[in-house]
Structure formats: structure tokens, C-alpha cells
């Protein structure tokens, strides 16, 4: 009996299964719902950093969406996200609109045990409508994690919903894996 092809097929199947298991372990599932959040497509054209993950919350009030991604290789290795100007520059607000203005000074925040800052903005969209936005930038050594949430609701609710979502086990697991390059 020819055992060689059987061994090869078994190895391939085993590899595929373990790969799929690893993927499920690090990435939130497409259809997963956590507090009303569901994953949606990353809508933006390719830029200097690979695409991240995008989610929409139907139960957060005001059509809230959040976009999260690591930015590996951040020049400000030693000081981290030192001030609000840093948040303005790196937090992907420009993906939503070139025109945004801060609503207030930012505050310190921790996401997935990384320190950084969070700041609220008023976004002027291309159709002239206005939206509230939250920009978040946290860092670990020379790498950043950024998130931007926007919606029609009020800022405190959106901020609370966004931070709560980023603190879920699923998101913390994904963020940790992404920051480790997995």
C-alpha cells in the first residue's frame, strides 16, 4: 500500500486545521457580536500602514463606527504619545475627513495595558454634515495602536462605548497579537 500520499495529505490537513485554530484565537470573528458591535469592512484605500479592523455598533446610539489598527514603527519611541498634537497627527482622523477640530484637551488613557491619550473632535464630513469623533493613540516602545470612533451621538456615550469595546477580551486579545506582529 502506498503510505506516502496519505502522510502528505494528513500533514496538509493538520497544518490547515491548526492554522485556522490559531487565526480564530487571535482575530475576532466576523459575525461576533459584543455589546452590539459587529465587524464591517475596512473602507479606506491603502496608505502607509496595513488596514486594521473596523466595527459598527447598532446599539450604541447614533450609528457609531470604530476603526482600529497598529502602526508599527513610531518615531517617538521614548516619550510615547506625549501630547494632544500627537493624537491629532496619528489617530487616523484624516481617514474620516481632512477637516476636524478638537472639542477639548485630551486625557490620558490605557488600552490593552498601553498608555496614551484620547481626545474628542468635531468632524466635518465631505457632504457637509458634522459628526463627533474620538481619537485614541497608545504606544508600546516604538509601536502605536490607534483607534478612531465616530458617530452622530454625543461624545461621552461614544467615548464610553468605544473604550468598553476596546477593553473586551476579544479586542484585547487581537490588539496584543497585532502589536506582537502575529
Amino acid at each position, binding site marked *: 500500500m502506498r503510505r*506516502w500520499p496519505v502522510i502528505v495529505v494528513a500533514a496538509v490537513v493538520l497544518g490547515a486545521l491548526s492554522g485556522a485554530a490559531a487565526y480564530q484565537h487571535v482575530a475576532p470573528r466576523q459575525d461576533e457580536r459584543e455589546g452590539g458591535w459587529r465587524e464591517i469592512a475596512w473602507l479606506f484605500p*491603502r*496608505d*502607509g*500602514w496595513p488596514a486594521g479592523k473596523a466595527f459598527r455598533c447598532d446599539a450604541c446610539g447614533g450609528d457609531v463606527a470604530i476603526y482600529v489598527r497598529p502602526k*508599527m*514603527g513610531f*518615531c*517617538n*519611541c*521614548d*516619550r510615547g504619545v*506625549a*501630547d494632544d*498634537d*500627537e493624537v*491629532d*497627527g496619528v489617530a487616523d*482622523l*484624516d481617514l474620516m475627513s*481632512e*477637516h*476636524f*477640530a*478638537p472639542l477639548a484637551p485630551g486625557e490620558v488613557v490605557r488600552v490593552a495595558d498601553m498608555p496614551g491619550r484620547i481626545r474628542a473632535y468635531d468632524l466635518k464630513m465631505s457632504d457637509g454634515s458634522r459628526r463627533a469623533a474620538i481619537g485614541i493613540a497608545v504606544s508600546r516602545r*516604538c509601536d502605536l495602536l490607534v483607534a478612531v470612533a465616530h458617530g452622530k451621538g454625543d461624545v461621552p456615550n461614544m467615548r464610553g462605548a468605544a473604550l468598553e469595546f476596546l477593553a473586551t477580551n476579544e479586542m484585547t486579545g487581537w490588539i*496584543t497579537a497585532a*502589536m*506582537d*506582529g*502575529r
Partner: protein
Amino acid sequence: MSGRLKFAACFAIYFLAGTGISYAQQQVIGAPPEALNMKLVGTSDLQARSAYQPTIHHQGERWIAYIGHHGGSDEIPAPVNPQTGKAEPNGTSMVDVTDPSQPKYLRHLPGQEGKYERGGAQMVRICDGKALPKGDRNAVYMLRTFGGEAHEIWNVADPANPVLITRIAGLKDTHKSWWECDTGIAFLVSGAPDWRTRRMTQVYDLADPAHPQKIRDFGLPGQEPGSTGAVPTELHGPISTGPSGNRVYFGYGTNKGGILQIVDRDKLLNGPKEPTADNLRLPEIARLPMSAFNGAHTTFPMPGMPIAEFARDKDGKTRDIVMIVDEAILNECNEPRQMVWFADVTIENRPMMISSYTVPEASGTFCERGGRFGAHSSNESMAPVFYKKMAFIAFFNAGVRALDIRDPYHPREVGYFIPAITAATDKRCVRIDGKDRCKVAIQTNNVETDERGYIYIVDRANTGLHILELTGPARSVAGLP
């Protein structure tokens, strides 16, 4: 031999050969340097301090190398200076290279306390007092950064005993500035506290270094105080062609979203100075936006290059070229390749990329060697010995690369030198499954040349200074005997 056995044998040979090649490319202490048409003349260990930028100055009868250092490392925040016996935060090394085969370490001038980019004194430029319009004729002035918080000017007429002249402080960052020795105008890469970017330009008149005169702040619209919306990428550094060329070439971005900005120097110096978006736009002639994959670390102008291929064309025989060098930031190829680009800016409002250069990765399996692989910087000397003929590119773990750029439409590598590592060479790490995995490799950070034709390279991973010269065909490209 059965088919299966043959397959297994081939697989084993392939695997073993592959592993062997991989090991062969990993640098080991004691192995010779790797070189083509370049040879080692002399070295200095620079007290095992991480080096950023060398500047070579012909000072009286002597040649002095001034080398700016990054801050120390986590393991050794302040290396011991054997000359003083004291631990000193990294600053500036002064080395007499009059005899390049026997460099003499003269003095370490400590910089700002702090590790890596946070401390040290990375940048250094030198002007003779007799060249500056209002300088002390007996002085030699060294402009350096003091970590991220200040610019300093020292009198280094006696490089072993520098004297502080002035300090411009209160900044949130600094980087690679440019100083015109014939006018005293300096384009200081600063971080003015109220600007929305970590690095922008402060233009100063340093004709009298003891009395700096601020001319204006400058940056891209959107970076100025009080603006809102998207913040353009931060400045890396400018290079000016002085009053005769009347252009300043600014490079923005390091490894992402680079911009070459061409600026009218006269309008920059004499135009309205209030930092409004309109006033910032006024001196700009053109911009060349680059891919989001690449930054503009060094923007080295080479105006009026005769192009042999175009010699019989009725128009366009000479071209104004800017060489743009990106900076690799991440270890072990964890980013898009950072390389060298040549832009034809003859038609200034329509600058165009015409060629590029990178080291072939497979020529040294550089992605596996450890540390950064990719371009960082070029020599910035405009001395006739190499200007518009050859360019030298610091390429981190691929050492320094010598390019024949006489036809910038087709740049060609004609030599390279990758120094050997030493016991002082520091490790570089990447995160694998949440843990650091480290390797030791050369990290050639910057390169400079002198009027004699020597090439000076310095290492970011603490391996020191290597002084090189060209040999063989590379030497004839430069027209050296």
C-alpha cells in the same frame, strides 16, 4: 534509488544548503569585513557610543571628524569615557583624522541625558569663524543638537577643549539642521512648543554665533499653531543651495508619506513671517509627494548635472537632480523597503522621479541578518571630489554603498563596505510571539566624505567609526588617481 528516496535526499540537501547560507550571512566577531572596491583605512571605536552623524572639517593643518551620538541604551545609558574615567551621557566625539590610518580620539563632549533618540547630541555642523560674516576669525564653530531640547554652538578651535558660546533651548525636539557658512543662515530642525508637529524649521541668522537672531518659523500648512484638521508629516531635514542657488530642499517624513518640498530661499527669508497657512505657502515652489510607503530623510540637491545620454539633444542637456534617501526604521524588514530615489526637478513645478536604487536583499540575505536593512542617509559634502559623480549611501546592515550617479537616470552600484562586528556591537531585536528575539549586525547609520576622498561611516549599534577609501573601478569613477 527510488523516487521517494531521491526526493528526500534533494529535500535534505536543499534544507542543509539553505541553513548553511543563512548562517554564512550572519555576522560573527572576528570575520573579515565584506567589501567591493572599497577598503578600510582606519577605525575608532568612538567609546562604543551609538553614532548618528559624522561631519569632517579641514581645520588649519588638521582634519577633524565631529561625530554626533544618539543617547545611550537601556543596558548602558552613559558609557564610561576612558579619558575621564567617568560615565558620560552620549554627546559629540571629536577625532583627529589627519592621518586616517591612525585616528586620534580627542574629546567626548557629553550631550543630553536620555536613552536612544531622547538623549545625546545627534546632529553636528561646522563653520569657520572667518567664513561667517560676523564670526570671530579665530573661532571654529560647532552647531549641535542637545538631545531634543536645544541647539548649541561651541567654539571648537581647539577641539580637545570646546567652549560653549550659545544655546537655543525650550524645544520639544530637534534633528538634522543645515547651516550656510558663508551667510550664517541656519535652518534649524526644531520642535517649537506651540506647533502641531514634533519637528519643523526655525530659521535663524547665526552670522554672529554669540548672538543668534530668529528670522521665522516654517513648516507645512496645517502644522502651524492654531490650525485644525489633518497634520502633515513632520520635517526630517533641509539642505540649502545658498543665495546663489536660492533654493532650500526640505525632506518630510522618514519611512512614510515622504514629501520633497522645493522652497524659494529669498521668499522664505524675506517674506511675511507670521505663521499663517498663506504665509507658509508663499515661498513654496513645488512639492513632490512620495508613496505612503517611503519617507524623505535626506534631500540632496545636484543642480545642473550634465547627462551624457542627452548631450546631443537640443534642450535638456543638463538636469537639476535631487537625490532623496528614505530611512528604514524597523528591524528585519518589517516595513516596505526604504531606498534611494532620484528626482528630476529641472521643471521645478513638475518634479518627477526618474530612477531608484536599492541593495538587492538576496545578495546578503539582509532581512535575516538582524537590525535594520534599508537606506538611511547619504553623504552631504558638496566637495568636488565626489559631487555629482558618486554618492555614498548608509544602508544599515548592508553597510555603505558606493553609487556611480553620473547618469542619475541609471544609478549603478560600484562598491560597498560592510564592517565587521566587534564585541561592542549592540544587539537588535524583533518581537516573536510576544518575546524579544535579538541578533547582532552592523548598523551603518550615516556617511560623510572629505575633500581628500576619504569616506567616513559610523555605526548606530556602537561599532564606531570606519574610514574608507575607494579602490579599483570605483576609484576611477571619481577620477581619483
